């Protein structure tokens, strides 16, 4: 009797386990099938929307209401993808029409939504088509607590060249470290001439050294098309970070007396300053620069020696000749770094 009861109990639990296992299995298969069907439908719809947009680009008339564009999320996705690949008047015109007809109203409603995904949608729409009348909304999204919202809104602010927005981004940049600092810097670097002028203005007037440094960081990221009146003052700064950033900018802008400045900083006691000075000198292929760089091949810091050798290599035949004439018997240190540069640096 006892044995039968145990067997029945065992059978009962076994059947329960098998049922649970099969239920889970069916659920997983169901999810997999549903997901695959959903993905297929999504790709199909994306293709349809893309084709429609492509045909409108060739001048086919935009109807008062296009059913295909009613899914705002999908339309935004496709428009963003087109925006990465196309530019020019015909694309800008079509983008303006589509965004203002199908997306802007939704985005404006979603600015103050409870869900961050909806606020992110709004920021993406404004980044796609930043209009002056949406500046307040963009600034409000820029102050959002969610990174994915404020980072997208910062793109919109830069594209709009909003002074308040750019100031806010510089503040974020000043308080950020590592990658997130670069993230904001890269967004600012995408700006127009107007954006750079605004940053120059902020750098000239700010009393916050961290914001000034953030501005310098931006200008050191690419050749700046505008003059920077504060640069000479920054080159005399006692703050090594400001001085370093100013030297980086000088390498790109090359002021009249840039060579003399680099030559003097090549003797600076701080190694990172000497590295930057050596990097800047590569633009001046003349006797005094080559002589100074050759002397610095024996610098006590390997970082400086490496940069000096790199600069000499990049200076072409004259620089390479200096590297070649280093003699192992005279000075092993200069010989080794010269050989490394000649053999391994591209």
């Amino acid at each position, binding site marked *: 009797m006892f044995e039968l009861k145990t067997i029945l109990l065992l059978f009962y639990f076994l059947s329960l386990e098998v049922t649970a296992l099969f239920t889970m299995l069916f659920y997983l298969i169901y999810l997999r099938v549903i997901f695959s069907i959903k993905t297929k439908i999504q790709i199909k719809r994306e293709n349809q929307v893309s084709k429609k947009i492509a045909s409108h680009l060739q001048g086919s008339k935009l109807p008062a209401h296009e059913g295909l564009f009613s899914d705002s999320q999908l339309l935004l996705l496709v428009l963003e993808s087109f925006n990465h690949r196309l530019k020019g008047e015909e*694309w800008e015109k079509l983008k303006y029409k589509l965004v203002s007809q199908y997306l802007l109203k939704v985005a404006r409603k979603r600015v103050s939504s409870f869900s961050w995904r909806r606020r992110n949608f709004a920021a993406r729409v404004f980044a796609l088509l930043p209009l002056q009348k949406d500046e307040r909304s963009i600034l409000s999204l820029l102050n959002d607590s969610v990174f994915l919202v404020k980072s997208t809104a910062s793109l919109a602010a830069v594209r709009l060249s909003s002074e308040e927005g750019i100031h806010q981004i510089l503040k974020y940049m000043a308080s950020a470290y590592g990658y997130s600092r670069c993230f904001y810097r890269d967004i600012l670097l995408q700006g127009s001439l107007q954006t750079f002028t605004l940053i120059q203005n902020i750098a000239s007037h700010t009393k916050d050294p961290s914001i000034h440094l953030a501005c310098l960081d931006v200008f050191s990221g690419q050749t700046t098309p505008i003059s920077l009146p504060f640069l000479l003052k920054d080159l005399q700064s006692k703050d090594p970070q400001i001085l370093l950033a100013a030297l980086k900018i000088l390498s790109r802008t090359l002021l009249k007396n840039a060579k003399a400045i680099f030559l003097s900083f090549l003797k600076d006691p701080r190694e990172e300053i000497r590295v930057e000075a050596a990097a800047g000198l590569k633009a001046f292929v003349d006797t005094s620069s080559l002589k100074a760089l050759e002397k610095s091949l024996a610098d006590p810091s390997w970082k400086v020696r490496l940069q000096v050798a790199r600069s000499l290599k990049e200076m072409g035949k004259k620089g390479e000749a200096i590297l070649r004439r280093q003699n192992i018997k005279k000075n092993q240190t200069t010989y080794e770094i010269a050989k490394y540069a000649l053999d391994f640096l591209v």
Partner: protein
Amino acid sequence: MASSKKDTVLIVEDDEDILQILTLAFKSKGFNTKGFANGKEALSYLMKKENTDSACLLVLDRLLPDMDGLEILKKLQEKFPNKLPVLILSALSAEKDVLEGLKKGAVAYEVKPFSISVLMQKALVLMNRRV
């Protein structure tokens, strides 16, 4: 307008949308088009003399799923040197990439994101030079 003999624009582009946009743009100017989504197909088509004879321009993407567009260009130049004007359309925008493309035999290089009008204008100039 295109001439009657050489009126086919060959487009090698793996991005379906761009391929469609370019196809429509060239068709609207009266050209025939032939599109390829990968390098292998394009290469086997281009290696036949009758195919290059009927073509007036090759629009070539660089980052193809199976090869670098420059490989196609290199093989085309080896077999039919300077026969077909080649316009590279690529997202690779660094100076060395552009130079590499031009050195391998492309006549023009357009960087993505691109303007359709500018690309079409460049293409028409290249074709008029030859046709």
